[in-house]
Each structure stands twice: as structure tokens, then as C-alpha cells.
């Protein structure tokens, strides 16, 4: 799966980071960095939670 973030929508609320810090990191520059665009399949539940809980609906999963 591929994690795609719409950076026009992303406002760095960092909810995704709280769910999966291995994949999402909001750094001190206040920007979101996707550390791993192709996380392993066993991370799918966390990725789906990140998609759902993003306040800006900025994350999508592409299969």
C-alpha cells in the first residue's frame, strides 16, 4: 500500500503521528514528514485509523 498525504489539506495536527510514529512525523519545522510511504501490510489497521482520524481528511491509502 502507498500512503499519500495531500499537503494542501494537511495542517500538521499530528494525530497521524500519535497513531503511527513509525510512518508519520511532524518535526519542529511544523511540517509532516512521511517516513515510510510503503508501510508493511500488517500496519494497515493503523493506517486506516490515521486516515479516519485526520482532522483534515488529508491522508489516503493507495493500493
Amino acid at each position, binding site marked *: 500500500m502507498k500512503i499519500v498525504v495531500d499537503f494542501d489539506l494537511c495542517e500538521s495536527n499530528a494525530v497521524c*503521528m500519535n497513531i503511527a510514529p513509525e510512518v508519520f512525523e511532524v518535526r519542529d519545522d511544523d511540517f509532516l514528514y512521511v517516513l515510510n510511504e510503503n508501510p508493511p501490510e500488517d500496519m494497515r489497521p493503523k493506517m486506516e485509523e490515521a486516515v479516519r482520524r485526520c482532522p483534515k481528511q488529508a491522508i489516503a491509502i493507495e493500493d
Partner: protein
Amino acid sequence: MREEGFTGRVVLVGDEPHRPYDRPPLSKQVLAGAWSPDRIELPAVAADLDLEWRLGTRASGLDLGGRRVLLDGGAELAYDGLVIATGATPRLVPVPDGMAGIHVLRTLDDCLALRAELDATPGRVVVVGAGFIGAEVAATCRERGHEVTMIEALPAPLARVLGGEIGATFAELHRDHGVDVRLGVGVSEVHGGARVEQVHLDDGSVITADVVVIGVGVRPVTDWLEGSGLVLDDGVVCDETCLAAPGVVAAGDVARWPNPTFGGQVMRVEHWDNALDQGAHAARTLLAGEAGGTPYAPVPWFWSDQYDRKLQLAGRPGPGDEMRIVEGSLEERRFVGLFGRSGKVVAAFGMNRPAPIMRYRARIAGGLDWETAIAEADAAAT
């Protein structure tokens, strides 16, 4: 429910005519006119979940023993499992009956009505209440070019929850953007003819008002449950798994439950993130049936966007908590403040510091010692 494998009927009853949507943009992008309403529909609506919709239908009662929900108009719905998520409704201040120009902001229809009046009226918007809704409405109206007066009964916005220091920063943020902020005063009367014309404050001031938005808080919608046998006390009272009665769970703004992460403190959380999280948890508790669900023990989290500032709160601060700014400064409008009670960090509030707030959120979940957190922050600052 579907994700957990439930294949039975799922019927959603909602008093609004719309399919479910996100409320946070109603005080921001939709009100500003930047987004049209179709952008806020919940993704779950479009997904093919095989749901039955009863929109524009208000629940009027509950027969707990008979497992039936009574609907306005006399219809009844029998259930095996019930999720109560009727949310909250805006509190009002006394206003003359039928006077035009006075608004609350909870639903999409409220938002569109307010937006239409803002489009039609270049005049002054008076916002009653400087909580998060009032403050966001004030910011959005100001950015649309309206003159705005924001009235707050407390000495500083959100002072009861976040304390006077942080509260004062909010007032200054709005004043810097040209909002006329009145603190420590309440509305005594609203005057006008067919339309509102003036708002009178209890310090004697009179403010010209072309549009009034009342944002003084909400109360949980539980009238329909009176006499049902459920325990009601500023919300539907649940156990720590979100169970209100056998086969009945509650979630979101309407649910009051003991939160194990805060020592069993009974709380009701009015934030978007909790609605999502607690909804999912309540569904799992319902499906667990007699086996029982697991405790719902979140660290509540909240965000508010005002001008170019992002405010975030993780945890549950209370009156009398100690507060310490541990990063940044109030002057820079970029900071983190920690709240402590009984030796523990109970909340972290940040302005334009999203990452640290999220990290504190995770640590509060595990129990974060106040002295440890302060010592770490002091060390990092040197």
C-alpha cells in the same frame, strides 16, 4: 460495526435532514465560503456499508425493557442493540421571540443561514461567548472583513478551563486582529425591531449589532430519554466501557463516563476526535455483548484554528490545576503549557506546537509525573 463483522441491520436515526457530516468546518471553511457543504460529508457515508437511514426523524422516547425507540410521529423501532449518539444542542440566551439576525452554530443549516446573512450584511457581528466556537466564528467573520465584537462573561476566554494567563493570550490574539473583545461582562438584553439592532451589556454598554451569534456552550440532548430508566446527569451516564444499560451504549457529546486514564474521573467530552474514537469503542462494546467491552480510556484531544494560530489541547485540565509554560512563550504566541494535578500532568495545551502536544498526549496516556515532565522541560530549555 461492519469492520468488526456485524452483518445485521444497522439503522441510523437522525433529526437533521442531512447525511452525517463533519462539524469543525462549519465555524471555519464552510462559514468563510471557501468550502461548499458537499465537502464535509463523512467518508463513511459514501462507503457502501449497507446502512438504513431515517433522516429528519427525531427520537422521542425509549422503552428500555421492550427494546424499542419511539420516534416523533408515533413510529417505533425495535432493536437488539442501541447506540445513543444524539449529541448536544446550543444553549441560548434570552432573546425576543422571532427577532431576525440572531444565530447559533451547531448544524450545517445554522452555518448556511449565518453565511447567507454575512454575505448580505456588511455590518457588525456580535459574538456572545469566547469559547472555541465563538472565537472561531469571530476569527472567520473578521477575516471576511466584518467588524466583530466578542463578548465573554469570564475575565478571560476559556479562563475556567485553561487559566487566566493562557486565556489573556486568546483575548490579545483577537484584539490584534481588530476584534473588539469585551471581557467580564454578560448580555443583559437584545434590542431591535423585526431584526436585531443592539446588544446591551450588563456594564451598561450598548453595541450596535447587525448579526448576533450566540456561542455560550451546548447541553447534551437527553430530553427524549427522561423517564426511560437510563441514568441521566449532564449526559447519558455509562460505565467505563461506554455501556449505559444492557444492549445500550452511548458515545460522543452525549456520553458521560468514568475515564480510567484520569483516575476514573467522570467526564463528558465535546470534541470531534472523541466522537470518532468513542463511537468506535462503543460499537465494539455493543458487539461484545455479555462478554463485556474494554475500558474506554482516552486522552481527549482537541484543536482550534484561529487566524494563523493552531490551538491544541491534549488531556483534561480543571480549575485549580497548576500551569507551567514549558516551551516557547505566550508573547511569541508559540508555546506549550502543562497542567498538573496531584503530582501528574493532566493536560498539555499548545499554540502552534502540534508535535510536542501529540508527544505529551501519548505520555499522559501512560501516566506522566509532573516533576519529571517539568525537570525534562527545564533541562531542554538550557
